[in-house]
């Protein structure tokens, strides 16, 4: 009897392998999720603006990033201006999630676009994206320019001279 109890007690050990498996699964899951959520937003240093309003992402918004070197980046993909035009044409008419129309009565795109340009990128690149937005077949008129909001206490320190 005592021997049987000893054997039973000796068998009580935790098998850590499934837990480690699950933890690794979690790590992989988070890695994928983080990657997905960051695809639209390139790591850029935005200029500070005192007049920038709070950004609330609108339904179906498109993002174009412009880095310091003047590369146009759409979902982590560096593109030339011509390729950007092709991609915008494809995306602007892609079905909306809620099934609503992608163009209004005047044939203008319902989708807005957010241009995220690095503070040190040349402004002509932003203008070129605006030019593409106005082209036939794209016709995006709601163009937002991204800027970092300045907190109230930082206003005086960052105000341009």
């Amino acid at each position: 009897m005592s021997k049987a109890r000893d054997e039973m007690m000796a068998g009580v050990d935790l098998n850590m392998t499934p837990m480690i498996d699950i933890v690794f699964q979690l790590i992989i899951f988070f890695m994928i999720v983080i990657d997905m959520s960051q695809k639209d937003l390139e790591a850029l240093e935005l200029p500070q603006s005192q007049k920038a309003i709070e950004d609330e992402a609108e339904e179906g918004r498109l993002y174009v990033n412009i880095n310091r070197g003047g590369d146009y980046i759409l979902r982590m993909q560096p593109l030339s201006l011509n390729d950007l035009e092709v991609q915008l044409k494809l995306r602007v008419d892609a079905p909306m999630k809620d099934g609503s129309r992608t163009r209004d009565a005047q044939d203008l795109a319902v989708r807005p676009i957010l241009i995220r340009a690095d503070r040190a990128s040349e402004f002509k690149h932003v203008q070129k994206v605006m030019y593409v937005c106005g082209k036939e077949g794209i016709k995006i008129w709601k163009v937002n320019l991204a800027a970092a909001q300045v907190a109230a206490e930082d206003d005086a320190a960052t105000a341009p001279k």
Partner: protein
Amino acid sequence: MGNAAKEQATAEVKLEMTSMIDVTFLLLIFFMCTIKFKILEGKLQTYLPKDVGVNATPAQEMLQKVDIRIIRTATRDKLDLDDKDTFKKWRDRGWSESEIEIYFQTERIASLKELGRQLKELRKTVPAPVNPGPEDEDDLKMNLEAMAGCIYEDIVHVVDIALDAKFTSITFRGIDLDA
């Protein structure tokens, strides 16, 4: 004898924490490396003209144009920051990426602050629209011309000042796409 065996068996039943702590530290390091602090990101809301081609509406006489020209004169990356005066000057500019010259109409403006003051003076003569839009257009039209080399940050600063002076109609002068 029986007591000793029982104590020994009980002593063996313990959780092996090492692996769990290893994994936990791995997770901690992973999240520390990947975390990005949320930057308060905002936007400047702009709209491109809806009408394409020639505008059928005749130009209104009462519209007053405000021409702003920005010329980039220096860039931070080409500065000698070991020079004390240069260092101080750039520090006072908030480590801006570039130095610009601003022209209001045809006159050189000393600083962005001065530009803001002049725009506000001008605004006093022409009231800002209550509900800016196609039905309530701003009679003061700003033309913003960014010369070659001007960076995005310079434009955002000028647009900030224009918005502060309640300008609602800002046009960016066209560019040569081949430039």
